[in-house]
């Protein structure tokens, strides 16, 4: 039986049609798009078409608002650093406690360089307080950077409304939308979002290609200066094959948009109900009523995530976890901690993320495989008795050091 891939928020399989579209750009279509001759010109035409496909997917007003980059992280760094450089008198950044490291680590670094970073906190379901946000908006803020959807829980933030509030206050707004693009419809021409990051490999394009959407008129300072590529906003010879691939992936994503919010969502819901019906002491993290259609994050109490993943992997199922051990750090996922998920559960969170390739049969196999794995690990756990968690786990266990 083929293995089951439920880790699509980490990366996705490149669609065969995408591979087919990009292959000629390694061989006969090898020209440099900046060249005058026909070798280059044909590639230039292909890039133009790809740019328009991405424009359509994002609902952007102009194709020149699409700047190709190497990845989501580059887009995030470009956006935030550009805002700081273009407005040197503004020394504050607003972001959230649950951002991806692409934003959070950069902001922490900027804090050491003297910038003030405001991190909006979330409640138990991973939701933001807009009142607090309104208070923070001021002339000192260079940029707001808030993710559209959380990669771990799938929880959606009201970025369109937040962008509107930022615009009213005269503040630039950026969103890391790598988990949303291709899964939910986006209409940037009717939004106040100034900058948006996306990553190709999250929507069935290959790794190594990303986009920074840059609304026309937004003050901008490039991260990479050099040649005139991307109108001088991102110098460096274009990743032609990657750009063509992303263009094709964008077309396919648009065609499958309804499938995501119907079929994929139904499969996700089936998986959630199937697991919760059979596994005791398990719950969904994040906001179940407002999340990506493909994402399910479940906390299994009193067991540890890496151990769950290893057993799932042995059963041919790929998922991911927010446990400390999977990352090599000492703390469980910052997203789980920000939501106040207790340690008894935070170490045992597992994320299942589906795609348009996920089938009913696969979901049924996962529903059957999970309960015995959880039971097996709980049997080993000192916090789990014969029929459930031991009474007062922290007291029943008397460590010599903690």
């Amino acid at each position, binding site marked *: 039986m083929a293995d089951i891939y439920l880790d699509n928020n980490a990366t996705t399989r490149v669609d065969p049609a995408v591979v087919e579209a990009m292959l000629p750009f390694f061989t006969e279509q090898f020209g440099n798009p900046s060249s005058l001759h026909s070798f280059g010109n044909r590639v230039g035409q292909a890039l133009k078409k790809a740019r328009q496909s991405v424009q359509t997917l994002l609902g952007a007003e102009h194709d020149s608002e699409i700047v190709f980059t190497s990845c989501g992280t580059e887009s995030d760094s470009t956006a935030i650093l550009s805002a700081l450089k273009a407005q040197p008198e503004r020394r504050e950044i607003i972001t959230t406690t649950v951002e991806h490291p692409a934003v959070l680590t950069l902001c922490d670094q900027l804090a050491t360089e003297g910038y003030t970073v405001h991190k909006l906190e979330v409640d138990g379901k991973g939701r933001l307080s807009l009142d607090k946000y309104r208070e923070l908006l001021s002339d000192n803020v260079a940029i707001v950077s808030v993710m559209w959807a959380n990669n771990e829980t799938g929880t959606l933030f009201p970025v369109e409304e937040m962008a509107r509030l930022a615009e009213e206050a005269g503040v630039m707004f950026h969103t890391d939308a790598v988990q949303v693009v291709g899964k939910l419809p986006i209409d940037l021409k009717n939004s106040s979002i100034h900058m948006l990051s996306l990553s190709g490999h999250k929507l069935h394009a290959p790794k190594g290609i990303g986009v920074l959407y840059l609304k026309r008129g937004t003050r901008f300072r490039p991260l990479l200066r050099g040649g005139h590529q991307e109108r001088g906003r991102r110098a460096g010879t274009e990743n032609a094959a990657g750009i063509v691939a992303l263009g094709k992936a964008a077309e396919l994503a648009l065609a499958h948009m309804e499938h995501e919010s119907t079929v994929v969502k139904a499969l996700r819901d089936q998986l959630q109900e199937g697991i919760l019906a059979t596994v005791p002491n398990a719950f969904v993290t994040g906001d179940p009523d407002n999340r990506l259609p493909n994402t399910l994050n479940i906390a299994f109490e009193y067991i540890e995530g890496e*151990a769950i993943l290893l057993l799932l992997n042995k059963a041919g199922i790929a998922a991911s976890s927010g446990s400390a051990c999977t990352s090599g750090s000492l703390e469980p996922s910052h997203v789980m901690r920000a939501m106040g998920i207790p340690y008894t559960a935070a170490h045992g969170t597992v994320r299942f993320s589906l795609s348009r390739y996920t089938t009913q049969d696969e979901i049924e196999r996962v529903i059957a495989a999970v309960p015995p794995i959880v039971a097996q690990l709980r049997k080993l756990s*000192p916090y789990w008795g014969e029929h459930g968690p031991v009474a007062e786990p922290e007291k029943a266990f008397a*460590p010599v050091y903690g």
Partner: protein
Amino acid sequence: MWDYSEKVKEHFYNPKNAGAVVEANAVGDVGSISCGDALRLTLKVDPRTEIILDAGFQTFGCGSAIASSSALTEMVKGMTLDDALKISNQDIADFLDGLPPEKMHCSVMGREALRAAIADYRGEKLEDDHEEGALVCKCFAIDEVMVRDTIKANSLSSVEDVTNYTKAGGGCSSCHEKIEALLTEEMAARGESFVPAPIKGKEKKIVPLKTPAIPAPAESVPTVAPAAASAASIAPAKMTGVQRIRRIELVLAAIRPTLQRDHGDVELVDVDGKNIYVKLIGACTGCQLASATLGGIQQKLIEDLGEFVKVIPVSNNAPVTVSGV
């Protein structure tokens, strides 16, 4: 995903001795649910012979925590308590054909649980101020606590110093930014500011290719002085200060031949409670041998003394006064 050995996988997928031992007369608990791993070891010990008849574990933790627990129970069954106490965390890791550097603490936890269980059986109180920080240097598995303590104890001011003292940063060098950040903080705490070393060309040593030197023959093993020999036979808990220092000297003497093979050496400078100050000499800095690392020396001392000690490298023989450690 981690690069686990086949042995780790085997002990994780099919753990041996899972569950509590019936009629256990020794229990050792370590870790906590907040840390992400916790281990309870239960032993059934024959009161006449002190032989471990049965061992069982209950573990909340990752794959290598469960595998280390399983390995430990397999190792100790049939051993006397005294022999079991000689098992080091490295022995557990070796039994599993090695663990990734980030996962070595799983084997440490196994050893701690064993010590706790034996202390429980003997009615002793086990004191532990086990401290672990986030890993800074992955090449030599040096954590933040070790780097900070060493910077403080020696008033270090450069990345090169930190590497010379702890080996951290002596490998791939990608942790130098983190070390600089720690230096900046620790130096600010003592009222100084960190200044990075100037960029300079590195002197290249040209080493002619030749066959490796033959390891030192057996006579280089140090002969044990009579006084030290008597110290070795005294139970650690009953040692006087002088006996304890002699015992530490003995442990260092046992490590010395390995260091000398690599043209290095170690010298005891001072002992202050749990802090043992040593001077590392010669080629130890870039050496990859585990026994030559501070962690290796510290582990050997902890095992031999049966108490938690911290090995801190210093540069000179002058008495060390450490504040805030």
